[in-house]
């Protein structure tokens, strides 16, 4: 891993945090409609995983998706515009925050039904196997999604067929407002992989370098026919389930502990400073640049047009040849 990569990882995490801070603020001020699920505390996963993936790989995301898209290269302008329902958004205002899509970057339409996308992602891996295109599919979901039948059906089928897919569970310890201990008895979600005779690993998801390295390591095996893998990244949702939820059903001590010790950005900043990879001045510059970028994106979104009402019935059905 070179210095350039290390700094890029840091910048990506700061971009995600800054974007989410602003969206959360706008939502709470009543400027954004819909449902907004921010990525606070999970930034190292998106940054590390996307750094490891290749251009041809395909990603299926969920309702908490801004970090995945931003880290993959989707512009903050198009993400924020989508949250504002503007025609300049990733989906031209048809999605809002939850179902972003960016085909150019291999980002499938994200799903707002918990676990709903796991089967679809598995089908993408099936296509890669039949086409022998060496692309790997990544399916993101949370701890809550591992209780839904689709999780089981998909992992089982992927194992039986040896499909090129990495299932990534972002275990943030809460399924909406329900604590993990209340929604499943198993402690390590990665152990569920054993039920499918699939490798499963639990990794600190607040350590961006560990996330990157583990993903990179399993990726090449999966790409070369090694079959599916389940990665569990341990993180903590530093916010409520959605921006309208303060999350105060969680013990204060628990929140503070994670905030102080396991905030992935704070942790990585400390590490970079300790290793002299970067100076405080350089960090400050990055933070300022990012803040400016995100502010500009908000301005861009606000000034953008709404979609024309007469386009509403377009593309309910595919009107022309698409796909590869």
């Amino acid at each position, binding site marked *: 891993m070179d210095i350039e990569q290390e700094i890029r990882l840091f910048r990506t995490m700061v971009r995600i945090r800054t974007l989410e801070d602003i969206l959360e603020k706008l939502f709470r001020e009543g400027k954004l409609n819909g449902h907004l699920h921010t990525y606070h505390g999970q930034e190292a996963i998106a940054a590390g995983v996307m750094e490891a993936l290749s251009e041809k790989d395909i990603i299926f995301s969920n309702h908490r998706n801004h970090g995945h898209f931003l880290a993959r290269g989707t512009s903050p302008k198009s993400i924020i515009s989508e949250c504002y329902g503007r025609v300049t958004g990733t989906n031209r205002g*048809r999605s809002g925050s939850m179902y972003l899509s960016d085909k150019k970057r291999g980002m499938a339409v994200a799903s707002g039904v918990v676990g709903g996308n796991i*089967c679809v992602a598995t089908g993408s891996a099936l296509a890669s196997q039949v*086409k022998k295109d060496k692309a790997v599919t990544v399916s993101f979901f949370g701890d809550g999604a591992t209780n839904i039948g689709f999780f089981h059906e998909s992992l089982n089928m992927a194992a039986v067929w040896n499909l090129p897919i990495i299932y990534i569970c972002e275990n943030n310890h809460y399924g909406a407002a329900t604590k993990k201990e209340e929604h499943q008895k198993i402690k390590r979600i990665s152990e569920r992989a054993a039920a499918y005779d699939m490798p499963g690993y639990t990794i600190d998801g607040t350590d961006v370098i560990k996330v990157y390295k583990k993903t990179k390591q399993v990726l090449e095996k999966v790409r070369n026919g090694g079959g599916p893998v389940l990665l569990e990244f341990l993180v903590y949702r530093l916010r409520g389930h959605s921006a309208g939820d303060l999350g105060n059903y969680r013990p204060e001590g628990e929140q503070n502990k994670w905030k102080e010790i396991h905030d992935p950005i704070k942790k990585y900043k400390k590490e970079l400073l300790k290793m002299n990879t970067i100076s405080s001045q350089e960090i400050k510059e990055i933070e300022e640049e990012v803040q400016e970028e995100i502010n500009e994106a908000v301005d861009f979104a606000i000034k953008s047009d709404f979609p024309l009402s007469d386009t509403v019935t377009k593309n309910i059905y595919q009107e022309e040849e698409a796909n590869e």
Partner: protein
Amino acid sequence: MSKSTYLEALKKALYEEMYRDESVIAYGEDITRYGFGVNKGLVEKFGKDRVRNTPISEGAIIGTAVGAAMRGMRPVVEIMFADFIMVGMDQILNQAAKINYLSNGEWSVPMVIRTPEGSRWFGGGAQHSQTVHSMFMNIPGIKIVAPSDAYDAKGLLKSAIRDNNPVLFFEHKQLYFKECEVPEEEYILPLGKAAIKKEGKDITVVATSWMVTHCMEVAEELRSKIDIEVIDPRTLIPLDKNTIISSVKKTGRLLVVDESPATGGIHAEIITAVTESEESFRYIKCPPKRIGSLDTPIPFSETLEKEVIPTKERIKREILNFFI
């Protein structure tokens, strides 16, 4: 021309499409060795990559078809009985039907779900005999096909496979072994075009799937008294309203016969199309009627089942009532 069963016609359609386009893949539960046998013989010709038996996982069968379709495949998946399609309902309603629209046509979903529905007079009972196609009428973004004979089955399945949208293809168990003339040479039938199965001037009977067989027999039996026009819409979405409207304009009478439970069924949609059309409304001579299954679960015992499923006798009685 030579005679072919509905089953053979479907087999031939699938075979021809798999031969023609290597992105067509077929899978489902036990498809190579059990069930009605539409997929029999395919694995020997096209291999195990493109023809697969799956675990009993309807959610994953349908969901993976969505994902594979997004990545350039044309999956033709089988659900062993139409009743079981509901296990994977989320994948149809929330994934397949939404992806093209949410991504403004960037990601499309060219897939077919084939499944046998309806009563078999065999005692399939409550969970193996239902006609469920009407429930899907309420999902913008999918197409629905229900062929009534071997000729239509072949031409429509080929169109369904070539279509760039999710298509639900409902086959009828009573029809698998019924024969009709099917050309040797290749042909396709467009989705959205009704067939006038018999011309007539006294009453328009719109019938679907197996009910077409009953209605054609009744039309023959009543030939000397009543000149019945029998129309088969062939596809429920898109629905060829124009052919039906023109027919009612001519006959002034309408009966709709479909095996779904009558409440909330396709019948009402067809009757509405005719009554809300300025073109046909003023020609209607008497109230339109519908015949569906009774609004009950389907019981096992033959005497009970024949009360529930529309019979030829019931259809004949209802038609005669128009002319009392």
